[in-house]
């Protein structure tokens, strides 16, 4: 049933050896394929064994699933756009997808826009307290951890500490906040993300609430997830026990602590944009916008920018062609088109070659709009984007401001 919780561990020897936290996720993905529930698995794998080059892979052979075992913290591939662009939104393919909370949110927003067929997906949620940009992570490992990035075999984020494990078995640990204050640590959007447990997926899997790093805590988040877990247990693919009340309490506490930290980062990030006077803000953004080289990267990466016939294209006659930097309308329209549904995935900011603080601004606006419209993007497919919807109830609201 939705809401059920399990402490799970794989029953597969090979998987137990290679995977972390008892290999439950890997076993579940493999079972999804074997049982014919899905045609393919979409997960992340280190390309040629390089942990700093995590790429999405589509797997159709159960034996290959194991190649995706183990968490990669220095990768944040654009899973939702991958699904939309390369798998035709799963229109005729059943896929089990591993998703971080922001991936799940992006998939839900694209589902609302009829770009992804959620019915064909099995969302295997992975709890997440942040990912790191690969290039910066490598520099950080060299300068802060004094280690060779190529020697790292695992990373972990826990209790605001970043730990790396090297191939000789040694572990090195640093305070995350200190690293982040020096410009390292997690991606900016991750620092301020409040969703650690992807309850909008079908199941949410994490390490919180387990001990000795050899089991996975699973929360069932939908009926689809519930059926799936039950079948996997019946087929003997994972062994489960009920979490103790202490374990459940631990999950809650760790989640709360991470949320609190995220809120502090939000305050800090947003203050950097709101502290300026109106004129300073205008100068700041005019300067930022004037650095744009109109590469369309932000638009192409954003899960909310789904239009086949984008108004910013030259042939739409709205933004004059052949001008760099583009007319101010270019960034202004991009931002205002997505601000009501931004899921803080950070993809736009990651891809921007000119490093405009796009996601910082857009997510800040989103938080304000979320308050006004009582709307949380990425959580519920039946909730429509607030700047693209109206309700019958509003007919009897006479004010000029929306008060919902």
């Amino acid at each position, binding site marked *: 049933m939705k809401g059920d919780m399990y402490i799970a561990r794989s029953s597969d020897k090979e998987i137990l050896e290679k995977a972390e936290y008892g290999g439950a996720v890997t076993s579940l993905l493999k079972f999804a394929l074997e049982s014919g529930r899905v045609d393919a698995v979409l997960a992340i794998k280190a390309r040629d064994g390089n942990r700093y080059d995590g790429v999405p892979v589509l797997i159709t052979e159960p034996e290959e699933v194991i190649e995706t075992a183990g968490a990669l913290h220095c990768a944040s591939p654009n899973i939702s756009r991958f699904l939309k662009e390369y798998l035709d939104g799963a229109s005729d393919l059943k896929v089990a997808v591993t998703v971080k909370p922001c991936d799940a949110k992006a998939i839900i927003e694209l589902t609302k826009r009829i770009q992804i067929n959620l019915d064909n997906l099995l969302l295997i949620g992975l709890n997440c307290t942040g990912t790191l940009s690969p290039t910066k992570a490598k520099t950080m490992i060299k300068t802060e951890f004094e280690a060779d990035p190529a020697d790292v075999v695992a990373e972990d984020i826990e209790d605001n500490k970043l730990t790396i494990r090297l191939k000789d078995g040694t572990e090195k640990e640093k305070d995350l906040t200190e690293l982040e204050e020096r410009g390292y640590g997690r991606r900016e959007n991750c620092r301020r993300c409040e969703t650690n447990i992807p309850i909008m997926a079908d199941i949410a899997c994490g390490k919180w609430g387990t001990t000795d790093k050899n089991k996975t805590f699973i929360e069932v988040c939908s009926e689809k997830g519930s059926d799936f877990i039950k079948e996997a247990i019946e087929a003997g693919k994972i062994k489960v026990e009920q979490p103790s009340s202490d374990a459940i309490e631990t999950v809650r506490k760790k989640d709360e602590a991470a949320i609190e930290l995220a809120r502090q980062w939000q305050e800090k990030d947003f203050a950097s944009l709101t502290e300026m006077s109106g004129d300073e*803000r205008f100068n*700041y953004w005019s300067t930022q916008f004037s650095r744009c080289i109109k590469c369309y990267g932000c638009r192409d990466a954003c899960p909310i920018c789904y239009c086949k016939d984008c108004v910013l294209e030259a042939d739409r006659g709205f933004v004059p062609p052949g001008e760099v930097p583009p007319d101010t309308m270019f960034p202004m329209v991009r931002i205002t088109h997505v601000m009501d549904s931004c899921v803080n995935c950070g993809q736009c900011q990651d891809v921007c070659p000119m490093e405009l603080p796009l996601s910082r601004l857009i997510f800040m*606006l989103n938080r304000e709009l979320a308050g006004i419209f009582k709307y949380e993007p990425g959580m519920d497919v039946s909730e429509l984007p*607030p700047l693209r919807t*109206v309700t019958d109830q509003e007919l009897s609201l006479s004010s000029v401001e929306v008060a919902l």
Partner: protein
Amino acid sequence: MDEFEPKIVGFFCNWCSYTGADLAGTSRIKYPPNVRVIRVMCSGRVDERLILKAFALGADGVLVSGCHPGDCHYQKGNLSARRRVTGLKPFLEAIGIGKDRLRLEWISASEGPKVAETVKSFTQTIKGLGPSVFNRRRNEH
């Protein structure tokens, strides 16, 4: 120096506010000449692009005016306008244009005096705010 005379772009719905402005005219109600009215078929036609373009081209203020809720000829066009205007304000504030430079009003075809009042008070507000940042920048260059 001459007193600052703001340029205001008014997007007025054909069925109500535009007719209301006509009525104000034929009734010889005086109001400031600062508003350039653009007639739209419904306030629901006004999206973020029109509003932002007006600012980018030098409007010191933008006034969107439509039928009262429940009276829109297309049922809910004005409700869309309300959401968009409400939603655009945080953006205008964040990038330094200022949320008070954008106003939404409901004015029916029979509310000639309300057209005058609205234009008067909005012109006053914009005078208080001074020229839009876009225009100040343009004048500096």
